[in-house]
C-alpha cells in the first residue's frame, strides 16, 4: 500500500501584496468599464480575496462585485446573479472577467434605469489589484500517508494556494495532477476536482480533503 512516488509533492504557500489603482466607480456603467479595462490580477483580487482574508466566515461574501452591487448600489437581483457565477467552471481569469461583463451588460440592457443610479461619495467601488509571492513550505509528501499528514499540518494559506492560486497559474502542478500522475490515483484526483472550494471555508475544505484521502487509505489497506 505504501507506494512512494519518486516525484514528491511540494506544498507551497503564498501571500499577497495589495495594490491600489486609484480607479473608482460610482455607478454600474463605470463599474462595467472598469472591469473591462483593469488587469486580470484585479479581477483575481476582487473575486478571491474574501476567501483568503476571511477564511473563518461561513457563509462568506462571494466577491467584491456582488457585495458592492448588492449593498451599495442596492441592486439585489444583479448582485445575486454576480454572486452565483460558477467560478469553479472558469479556467482563466479572462473567462471570469468576460462572464461578469456578460452578466452586468445583460442586466443593463434589461433595466436601463439601473445604469443611472449613483452611490454617494465614499461608497464608490475602488479597484485594487494584487501581486502574489509564492514560497515553498517545509512540507513534502511522497505517498498518501505523508500527503494526509501534510494536509493536516500545512498552514491554511497553503491549502488556499493549491486550490485557488494554482487554478490560474499552471506553472506548478495541482494536487489532483500529482495524485493522478505520480501516485496513479486518478479516481481520488477526480474527487478532488469535484469539490467546489468557493462555497466552503478553507478549514472545511482542509477537512474534506483529509476525509477523501483517509477513505482511500482505508480502501487500499483493505485490499
Amino acid at each position, binding site marked *: 500500500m505504501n507506494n512512494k512516488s519518486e516525484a514528491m509533492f511540494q506544498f507551497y504557500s503564498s501571500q499577497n*501584496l495589495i495594490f491600489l489603482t486609484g480607479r473608482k466607480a460610482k455607478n454600474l456603467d463605470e463599474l462595467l468599464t472598469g472591469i473591462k479595462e483593469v488587469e486580470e490580477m484585479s479581477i483575481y483580487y476582487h473575486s478571491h480575496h474574501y476567501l483568503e482574508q476571511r477564511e473563518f466566515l461561513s457563509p462568506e461574501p462571494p466577491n467584491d462585485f456582488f457585495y458592492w452591487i448588492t449593498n451599495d448600489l442596492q441592486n439585489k437581483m444583479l448582485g445575486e446573479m454576480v454572486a452565483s457565477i460558477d467560478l469553479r467552471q472558469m479556467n482563466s481569469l479572462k473567462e471570469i472577467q468576460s462572464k461578469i461583463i456578460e452578466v452586468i451588460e445583460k442586466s443593463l440592457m434589461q433595466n436601463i434605469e439601473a445604469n443611472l443610479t449613483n452611490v454617494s461619495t465614499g461608497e464608490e467601488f475602488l479597484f485594487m489589484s494584487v501581486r502574489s509571492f*509564492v*514560497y515553498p513550505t517545509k512540507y513534502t509528501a511522497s505517498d498518501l500517508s505523508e500527503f494526509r499528514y501534510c494536509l493536516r499540518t500545512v498552514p491554511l494559506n497553503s491549502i488556499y494556494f493549491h486550490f485557488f492560486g494554482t487554478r490560474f497559474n499552471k506553472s506548478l502542478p495541482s494536487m489532483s495532477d500529482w495524485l493522478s500522475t505520480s501516485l496513479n490515483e486518478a479516481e481520488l484526483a477526480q474527487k478532488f476536482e469535484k469539490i467546489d472550494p468557493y462555497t466552503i471555508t478553507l478549514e472545511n475544505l482542509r477537512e474534506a480533503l483529509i476525509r477523501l484521502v483517509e477513505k482511500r487509505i482505508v480502501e487500499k489497506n483493505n485490499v
Partner: protein
Amino acid sequence: MSKIKEYVKFVGADVINELEFYAGKLAGIKIQNINSTSVGGGVAEILARMIPMLRELGINAYWDVIKGGEKFFEITKKMHNALHGQQVTYSDEEISLYLQTNENNAREMKLNGDIMFIHDPQPCALIKYKQGDEQKWIWRGHVDFSNPEMFTWNFLKEYIEQYDASVFSAPSFAHRLRIPQVLISPSIDPLSEKNIDLPQETIDSVLEKFNIDKNRPLVTQISRFDYLKDPIGVVKVYKLVKKYIDCQLVLAGGGATDDPEGAKVLAEVQEVAANDPDIFLLLLPPASDIEINALQRASNVILQKSLREGFGLTVAEALWKSKPVIAGAVGGIPLQVTHKYSGLLTYTIEGTAFALKQLLQNPAYAKKLGENGHEQIRKNFLITRHLRDYLLLFLSLLHKTDNVVFL
C-alpha cells in the same frame, strides 16, 4: 526567548517562519527609514516597534530623522491639515523654505540605504537626491488622503511620482498616480499595554476607580472629545437605549487639555449628558493604556460612532478583545468590520441605538460577532501582518515585473 517569537502564541509558528523566510531573501539589503520626529505621534510609534523587529529578523534597517526649524514645521503642519481637506495657502517663501530644508537635510544626512523608506510629507522632497536607478525609494503616506486640498496634493504629487512606489493606509486614500500604490493598513500590537490580556482583578479595580457598576451592561466609546467622533451622538444613542435597558455609558479619551476644541466638545457632551449618573465622561491622561484596555475588556458593546476617521484602530483594539463593535462606516473602519459578520456598521443615531439594543439583548449574536472580529484582527491587523507587508513591499521592488513571484 527573542521578542519576535513571543508572537507565536497569537499567530502561530508558521507566520513567524514565513517572516524569517522573507527576511532571508532580503539579507544584505540596507533599509533606511526617514521621518520628521523620533518621539510622539503614530509614525514614530510604528517605527519604534518595527525597526527592532526588522533588525531581529536580520535586516539592516535603520531610522533617521530630518531636522527643521519652527517655521518649517509650521509649513508641514499646514500641509498635514491640507491633506485632511482644510483650505490653505502658501507664500513663495514658505515653499522655498520647505524645499531648502529638504535640501539641507539631504546634504547633512547619508542617504545610503538600498531601499529608502520616506514617511509623510515633511521629507517627501528628499527624492530629488536619489542616487541612481539601483537605489529604490518608497514614500509612505500615513494620513487620510481621501479628500486633500488640491494645491498641496499636486505640489506633493510632483515629488511622490518620482518614487518607485507609494504606500497608503486605506483604499479610499488612493489617487491616480504614475507609480505603484500599495495598500498597507496600520496594525495593533498584542503585546502592548493597550492590548495585553489583563487579570480580572485589574479590570475590576479600574471599574472601581471610576465607580462603574460591574453588574450592569456597559457600553463604551474610546476616542478624543472631537466632533468627528460624534460623542454627542453617542450620548443620544445611549438615551434611546436606556429607555429599555438599564445600561451604563463610558466615553473615555484624552487630549482635551491641549486642544481648545476638545474642551468645547466636552462641555457640550456634559450638557447633553445632564448629570446622568450612569454616563461616565473620562478625560484620561496620556499614559492610560491599561485603563483603556480594562474599560474595553469590561464592556458589553464598544461603539465607534465616528463621522470621519483616519483608520480607527480603536475598532481593531476592541475586536482583538472579542468585543462586539458598532461603528460608523467611515475611513478604515469598513476594512475592519464586515457588516453583520464581524460587527455592525451604522449611519445614524437611531440606527446605532437599534443595533445596540439588538446586541445587548442577544448576547449569543454579540458573542459571535466579537469572535469573528477577533479572528479578523488576528489575521489582518496585528503587527506581524504589518511586518509581512513591509517585507513583501521591499521584495516587490526587487522583482518589479512579475504578478506572481516565486521566491
